[in-house]
């Protein structure tokens, strides 16, 4: 059987070691740390992880404060400074909805508040960008600069199976695979153009005859190989070739007129948005065309606004563009029927995250430094929205303990929540009660 026949036999997806794809998925589950108790409630579930890089300012979007209460006069007591007067957008630019209050740069997500879950007052482990980003993506505190677990997206991809061409698509950020099958590793590129190039023929290409012969040559090499590290490389080489032949690249060709309507919808190239609109378009295409089950994309970068000019002029708009990309994606997913019933948003959980948040007190440059608390935003996937889990305190915006059953602050009997709790919650929502990610924290049962 040549590689093309192999490819066709398995319907365009990748097969390894001659096993059928469903068999491989079963093996992945069987080899997971706590096999036997898994029961994925509905395998038709999807996940989008949206990364805001550089540490977001809670005051501008997810965790604002009333400037009439938190005035400059009480800063010595509260250590909280809204800074709204420096932004030139009104003395109280907060956005009130029936369910929750947002900062001024939440963008179009404010009209979807009944679908949103805000998690406030999360406790983080680090205010270093690199290690904290690893914590956010893996939901495990890294050991220095070394991750101690896989990305949550990688774990979920490994559980959802390898039927999709790219189980775990990642654009603009990092991905980690410590202990899961190779096929669940993040397919990482820095932008949609590079991703498209990775699925397309190069500027010079070989003929089918040459590629077939190469396939047979590397099959022989793989069979005779004794170096374990090479096994992964041979498998990845084969996956790259099969992806090339899958014809998937057209779905992500931003120059194609076929994507004209989608580009207009997401605002690609409209002079306002940046790469986040392309990334959200890519996420929509990857999910709804059966390319990926898990997509991670960067919705904003450059949020590390220590400098006052940057904080006052750039931070908010960057946040807003990022949240607008999420709103556009969620709205279109909701408008797109899923073949198994319902719409795509009802089956797709979106988790917006940043590595930590910015200090509630402006620094000497009128920018904001790093701060050890954090927030998160979730929507879709059947989550009951319009809720806020936890809260920061009114002094220093510190983390507070939360009653996981109700989501309310309970500093006596509650627990501090972090990424680990959210990751565990996603596992539970899949039907997996065992702690396969070794998060060592319970789920937020208020979200189940």
């Amino acid at each position: 059987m040549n590689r093309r026949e192999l490819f066709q036999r398995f319907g365009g997806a990748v097969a390894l070691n001659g096993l059928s794809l469903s068999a491989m998925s079963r093996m992945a589950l069987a080899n997971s740390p706590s096999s036997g108790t898994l029961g994925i409630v509905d395998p038709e579930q999807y996940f989008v992880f949206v990364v805001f890089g550089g540490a977001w300012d809670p005051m501008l979007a997810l965790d604002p404060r009333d400037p009439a209460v938190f005035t400059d006069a009480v800063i010595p007591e509260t250590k909280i400074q809204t800074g709204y007067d420096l932004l030139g957008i009104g003395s109280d630019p907060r956005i009130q909805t029936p369910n929750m209050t947002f900062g001024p740069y939440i963008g179009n997500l404010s009209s979807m508040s009944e679908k949103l879950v805000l998690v406030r007052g999360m406790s983080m482990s680090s205010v270093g960008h690199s290690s904290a980003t690893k914590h956010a993506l893996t939901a495990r505190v890294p050991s220095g600069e070394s991750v101690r677990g896989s990305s949550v997206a990688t774990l979920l991809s490994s559980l959802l199976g390898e039927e999709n061409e790219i189980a775990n698509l990642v654009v603009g950020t990092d991905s980690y695979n410590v202990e899961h099958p190779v096929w669940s590793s993040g397919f990482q590129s820095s932008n949609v153009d590079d991703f498209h190039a990775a699925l397309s023929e190069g500027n010079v290409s070989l003929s089918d005859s040459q590629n077939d012969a190469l396939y047979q040559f590397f099959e022989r090499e793989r069979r005779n190989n004794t170096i374990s590290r090479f096994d992964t490389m041979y498998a990845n080489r084969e996956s790259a070739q099969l992806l090339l032949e899958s014809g998937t690249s057209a779905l992500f060709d931003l120059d194609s007129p076929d994507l004209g309507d989608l580009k207009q919808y997401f605002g690609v190239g409209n002079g306002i948005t940046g790469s986040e609109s392309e990334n959200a378009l890519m996420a929509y295409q990857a999910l709804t065309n059966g390319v990926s089950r898990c997509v991670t994309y960067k919705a904003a970068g450059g949020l590390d606004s220590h400098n006052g000019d940057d904080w006052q002029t750039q931070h908010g708009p960057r946040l807003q563009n990022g949240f607008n990309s999420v709103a556009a994606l969620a709205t279109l997913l909701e408008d797109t029927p899923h073949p198994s019933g319902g719409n795509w948003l009802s089956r797709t959980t979106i988790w917006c995250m940043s590595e930590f948040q910015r200090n509630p007190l402006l620094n000497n440059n009128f920018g904001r430094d790093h701060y050890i608390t954090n927030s998160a935003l979730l929507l879709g996937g059947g989550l009951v929205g319009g809720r806020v889990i936890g809260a920061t305190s009114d002094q220093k915006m510190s983390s507070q303990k939360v009653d996981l059953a109700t989501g309310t602050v309970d500093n006596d009997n509650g627990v501090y929540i972090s990424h680990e709790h959210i990751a565990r919650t996603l596992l539970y929502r899949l039907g997996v009660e065992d702690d396969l990610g070794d998060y060592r924290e319970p789920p937020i049962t208020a979200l189940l």
Partner: protein
Amino acid sequence: MKSVIVLMLSWGCTSSVPSDGPSSTDTSPVENPSIDVNEELLGDVELSEDTTVVARRRVRMNVDQLNQSMQQITGVEWKSGNTVLWDRYSSTLGVPDFEERTSEDLEGSVIFQKFLQDAATYTCNSWIENESEDGDGYFYVVTQEGQTSSVLKAHIGHLRYLIHGISSGEEDAFDESVWDLYQLVYQRTENSVSAWQTVCVAMFTHPNFYTY
């Protein structure tokens, strides 16, 4: 008054000295008790002459090493127009920018394999095209029709040494596999240039080239 203060300070210092310690005025050296050392031989140790490191974990070349190595071997740089494509895809290939990333991702990921294959295909095609047209070129003889198998196999060995840095042994399994590859492409295309292109790409996309 001054003498009273000095007296008080000196009293304060001496009062904190443990009673079994040396007095503050005793500065003569103290001889430590001797330790008996058994100098009897316990055994012989033979120093091995073989200090070769048998194996170590292989590491993938970084993007700069790949670019330099391929250029060194072939004289060709992977480009589209004036754009060096290793640079174009450097971020996706995990090259550090020393702003957000300070170490290079050296996994042999799917996307790395894709771009390596593209680079190898471009480089090999240009290399063979350049070298087969020149009467003194590296590929001139072997792309002429009617060459014996021994000449062709010898060239495979040369290529392997050039690209992998490995000398072929007698009845070398790898060389035989590459020979099968050459023959298969030649049989299908009846074109020796296509066959050598494929062999060249196989060599450059083999882990023996890009890991060390």
